């Protein structure tokens, strides 16, 4: 080992860019769906803060009010949310997200539906817009009719919905999976078989619950909700590690990332890109630039000229499961 790599003042500028299913990202950070992704103005701001790509909040065919408040709460180890997919529906979304070239990074559309046909219809309506890819979250743990509460987290449903979405567009399709399914590799394999171009791992954990003791009442309006942020991080890393072993698709690793070191762990577990959501609570939209700066410093420390050389690096160790 060379002592020179110990010094950050090394003589190279690490290349943080990655190619995700054919889409070039200047750096691997991606704004996760459901965080700040309600308007084009917010996407622009997040891109200007340094995100490599941004994802809109999930859009359904018809407008949805979502669950009653409280919908999102911070507890000591993360966030817990049951937003219930509130969104203005695809028609208004098409107005809101027109002219996406204003946004300084690729924009991913997140599309939801209660059955395959709805996914197809929403994607069809969005096709004229400038989205770089479609993400299908088949894994929300707290919205009846959708995700795991809609039976979409099984290998069969994943295959069927992915196939349908695949047939509706030539753009890349990402399938977002749940950390709650023990056989996560099977679900990733089903998505691959259905024609997915990448796996987004993972959606929120649980559901979980917190109770107000004085009123004996669960604190979320819906009673329970998905857990994200620091609490999710080790689980998400293991999921990314498992998916990397199970399928040869690029992975967007999401869950608890709030520093460059966390993002680097994701990359070494197998992620090509790294989603960031709850960390906006602790660090604001500026978290993206902060993470990117820290990843650059870590590349220098490790003597890595291209971040992409580190994807899956943790798998190159012997004797581990």
């Amino acid at each position: 080992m060379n002592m020179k790599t110990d010094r950050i003042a090394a003589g190279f500028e690490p290349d943080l860019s990655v190619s995700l299913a054919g889409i070039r990202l200047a750096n691997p950070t991606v704004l996760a769906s459901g965080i700040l992704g309600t308007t084009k103005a917010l996407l622009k701001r997040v891109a200007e803060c340094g995100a490599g790509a941004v994802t809109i909040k999930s859009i359904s065919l018809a407008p949805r009010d979502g669950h009653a408040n409280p919908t999102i709460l911070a507890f000591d180890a993360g966030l817990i949310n049951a937003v219930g997919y509130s969104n203005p529906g695809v028609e208004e979304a098409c107005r809101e997200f027109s002219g996406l070239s204003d946004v300084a990074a690729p924009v991913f559309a997140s599309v939801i539906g209660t059955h395959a046909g709805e996914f197809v219809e929403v994607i069809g309506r969005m096709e004229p817009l400038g989205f770089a890819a479609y993400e299908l979250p088949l894994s929300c743990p707290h919205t009846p009719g959708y995700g795991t509460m809609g039976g979409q987290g099984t290998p069969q449903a994943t295959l069927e919905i992915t196939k349908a979405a695949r047939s509706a567009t030539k753009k890349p399709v990402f399938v977002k999976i749940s950390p709650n399914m023990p056989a996560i590799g099977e679900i990733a394999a089903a998505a691959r078989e259905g024609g997915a171009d990448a796996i987004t791992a993972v959606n929120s954990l649980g559901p979980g619950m917190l109770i107000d003791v004085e009123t004996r009442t669960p604190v979320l309006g819906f009673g329970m909700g998905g857990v994200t942020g620091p609490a999710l991080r080790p689980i998400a890393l293991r999921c990314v590690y498992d998916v990397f072993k199970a399928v040869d698709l690029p992975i967007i690793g999401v869950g608890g990332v709030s520093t460059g070191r966390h993002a680097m762990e994701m990359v070494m577990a197998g992620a090509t890109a790294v989603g960031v959501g709850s960390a906006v609570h602790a660090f604001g939209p500026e978290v993206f630039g902060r993470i990117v700066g820290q990843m650059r410093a870590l590349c220098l420390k490790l003597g890595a000229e291209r971040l992409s050389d580190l994807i899956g690096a943790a798998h190159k160790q012997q004797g581990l499961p």
Partner: protein
Amino acid sequence: MSDMRQSSWKSGLPFSIRVIEVRDESRSARTLMFRRPESDPDVAASGDAPDFNLSGFVPGQFVMVWIPRLDEKPFTISYLDDRTFGITVLKRGPFTKALHAMNPGDWVGFRGPYGRGFSLSAGGVVVGGGVGMATMATLIDRLDKPKILQGARTADELLFLDRFPGMDISTDDGSKGRRGFVTDALAELISADRPAMVYACGPEPMMARVLQMCRDRCVPCQASLERFMKCGFGVCGQCCCDGRRVCRDGPVFNSDELAGLASFGRFARLKSGSKVGIGAYHGGGKGE
């Protein structure tokens, strides 16, 4: 290794507190008073250290008010002393009706305070319209004898007449004070004597006029916005006014910031996120 600075992560769960007093403030507004948990010996005795803590409260910040099994909405702290605090609620829809129905002993949940409050400077003028006066109350407490302009539709919707004697009052119908809009009173004041700062909270069309007036005459101004909120701490994007999160970047914005917001005074978002005209959003509401 975890290089996340733990201090950056803030837990913010609601803490339920009993109503200790109910006060009628006007025909349509009522104040609910509570004991501050930081100074409640019973809270300390049970080893609790609630996330809800008002010790760093800045006027203009808000709290999320939770009625279990119903809903949770943002409100201003309108009364604050060492032992107690209060919120002043205008009866508008189902949630505020439920708050008006509360009695001493009933539980209400609180989290926060959230957002960026007013930045205080000497020699300002305070402009409150309708229940927007609730937001101005703790600000007035901290300013040194500011000039106060209050506007309301009629006399019996005016707030804090005894609490802040000597306010300059306007009513739409002239039932008390001058007849007309509070913005007319402000126009007069500004042309007579350029104030160092104008602080405003009220219906958004009123605040839009205040902003216009202040910018025309190069008077700095700060105004507190109202948008539908979910998280209250800047992650969900529900409350945004263009690229600004009202809950975290605001709710108080200064003249320059407001001038950059195309939606200010024009559009807001409903619970689903649908964008509607500001009139449709308020349903004629907010103290008008």
